[in-house]
């Protein structure tokens, strides 16, 4: 395998969790809910996936545990913001703080244990294609899931009736309510989907990216996923483009260090965060297009009048 392929493989591994978490948050935000707790749900997913894998010996049960824990954790956010109409920004932060604490407690006994890496699923014949084969058809299950999610979310949002209803809830909850759509239920489901995706992204971190448990191992990826949604102007395909771009940036620092470029490692490590800021500036400096793309009810609470 050539060096270029090796680099591309690491880019894919770094990009996959970003793509998955951002897709989930995209669906949540399309329903008009801003969940800033992605980082917290992701780290919960990472901790639960790792612990479940160590306990059962099966990384597939680990994946399930990651998804479930993310979805359950997001339910907490849903209850506060949707049922009790608490402030979404503050509740999202609370979710992140709580997630970092609880995951630390869950994973504490497992620090330093080497985990089970998620096995590759090799597609016969297809994986023999030069270049593309090893990159696309010799991957782990979470990578395939991420591809399915992109296609699925895009299809759901723009080709199905339910997807249209979800988008209408996000653009004008009062109109949607008047049309007889159950706004709160739709938003609960969207929030839980976002949580499940964040949990799956976390599972990727502790089962594929670095198969072990380290406290705070999500290292801001949840926040980068939030920025990705803005970058993608709430469109699934652009999430993929953005996710792989960010994957490339965060990997470039490792390779730059390996090649012995004379820049302090801390500056290279800061690159993904600085790139996030730069990208946000470029995307949002045009007030008009931002306004058109953003779901109109994003972040606003809804209390049905009876």
């Amino acid at each position, binding site marked *: 395998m050539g060096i270029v392929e090796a680099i591309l493989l690491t880019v894919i591994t770094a990009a996959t969790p970003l793509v998955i978490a951002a897709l989930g948050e995209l669906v949540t935000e399309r329903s008009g809910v801003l969940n800033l707790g992605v980082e917290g749900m992701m780290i919960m997913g990472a901790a639960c996936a790792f612990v479940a894998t160590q306990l059962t010996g099966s990384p597939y049960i680990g994946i399930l545990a990651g998804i479930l824990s993310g979805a359950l954790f997001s339910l907490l956010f849903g209850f506060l913001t949707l049922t009790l109409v608490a402030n979404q920004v503050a509740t999202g932060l609370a979710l992140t703080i709580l997630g970092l604490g609880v995951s630390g407690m869950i994973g504490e006994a497992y620090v330093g244990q080497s985990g089970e890496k998620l096995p590759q699923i090799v597609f016969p014949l297809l994986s023999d294609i030069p270049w593309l084969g090893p990159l696309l058809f010799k991957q782990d299950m979470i990578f395939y899931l991420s591809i399915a999610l992109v296609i699925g979310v895009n299809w759901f949002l723009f080709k199905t009736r339910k997807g249209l209803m979800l988008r209408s809830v996000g653009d004008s909850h009062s109109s949607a309510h008047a049309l007889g759509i159950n706004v709160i239920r739709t938003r609960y489901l969207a929030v839980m989907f976002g949580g499940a995706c964040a949990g799956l992204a976390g599972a990727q971190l502790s089962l594929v990216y670095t198969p072990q448990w380290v406290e705070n191992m999500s290292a801001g990826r949840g926040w980068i996923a939030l920025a990705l949604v803005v970058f993608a102007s709430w469109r699934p395909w652009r999430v993929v483009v953005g996710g792989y771009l960010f994957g490339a940036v965060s990997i470039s620092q490792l390779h730059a260090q390996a090649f012995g470029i004379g820049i302090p490692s*801390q500056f290279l490590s800061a690159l993904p*965060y*600085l790139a996030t800021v730069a990208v946000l500036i470029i995307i949002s400096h045009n007030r008009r297009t931002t306004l058109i793309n953003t779901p109109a009810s994003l972040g606003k609470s809804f209390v049905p009048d009876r």
Partner: protein
Amino acid sequence: MRIELEKRPKVSVLFSIFSPFIALILTLIAGAIMFAMLGKDPGYALYSFFIEPLMEVWSLHELAIKAGPLILIAVGLSVCYRSNNWNIGAEGQFIMGAIAGSIIPVVFYEWQSPLVLPLMLVMGMLGGALFAGIPAFLKAHMNTNEILTSLMLVYVAQLFLDWLVRGPWRNPGGMNFPETRTFGAEAILPEMLASGRAHWGFAFAIIAAILVWLMMRFTLKGFEITVLGQSERAGRFAGFSSRKMIWFSMLLSGALAGLAGISEVSGAIQQLRPVISPGYGFTAIIVAFLGRLNPLGIVASGLVLALTYLGGEAAQLSLGVSDKVTRVFQGLLLFFVLSCDTLLHFKIRMVWADLNDTVKDTH
């Protein structure tokens, strides 16, 4: 069963006073359940978490040391949040304040003068304010979301500090440990009382809280903050500029976070290290909300959250539970605070499923 909200005609005065206390009690109950699940005696656990640290003079000093930065940062954040500017990067502004304030005692360590300390404090505030100025500029002039930019800059500040103390600022006589030289006598924030370690940072916090409270209560600026926060449109009609408000609130909170940073470094640590904050900038967000964004309330809530840090350390020793318990407590507290705030604006009713419901739910 489902829960229904009914809007109150007026904000409930009763609950606006009692909701933080209800939240505290609920957090204690949840904490007791958590300790029971961990196999500890909940009564003893809560006692060693929340009462024991208050029984000794030295630990009261520790409480003031921890409460100082929390209150300082949270007071600034309250102005931001009231005006609808979501600065969540106070942790980074704290670090940059500490770095800027440390330039004199680390780089110009040979200069000895009574001016050193005041200059350090001013530079700390400037450092924090300048760092908060980045998201302020990006929001005011580039329309960029301040939540994400201010948070991203926290990581940048942490890495920058890490580089400084391992690289150019490392103590030449420090056996290669990643830390700067220790500050000289002029560069150290003195202790307030002879009885213990608590330094003047706590006094700064109280002064800042009172000043900001006066501003919010009695000045036009305070009114402007409230109006713009509640309705930007109404504020525009009154001739207030939301762009100027972004700058004002972010710079103020950055300066206070920076002051907290340099006070902590100069008063408590007395040198720079790779990690100088146990997450004060994030915990201060909880402090701000528990204090209902009121500077005087924040003084009280800052003491409560400082207690969770001390209690965490104490519980680690006496109960052998993980120090992660502190973070869990803090997260739970914010959750309960936010849910209890619902009581201010709404009456909550439980509705048991009835025929009406089934009809309603069919669409």
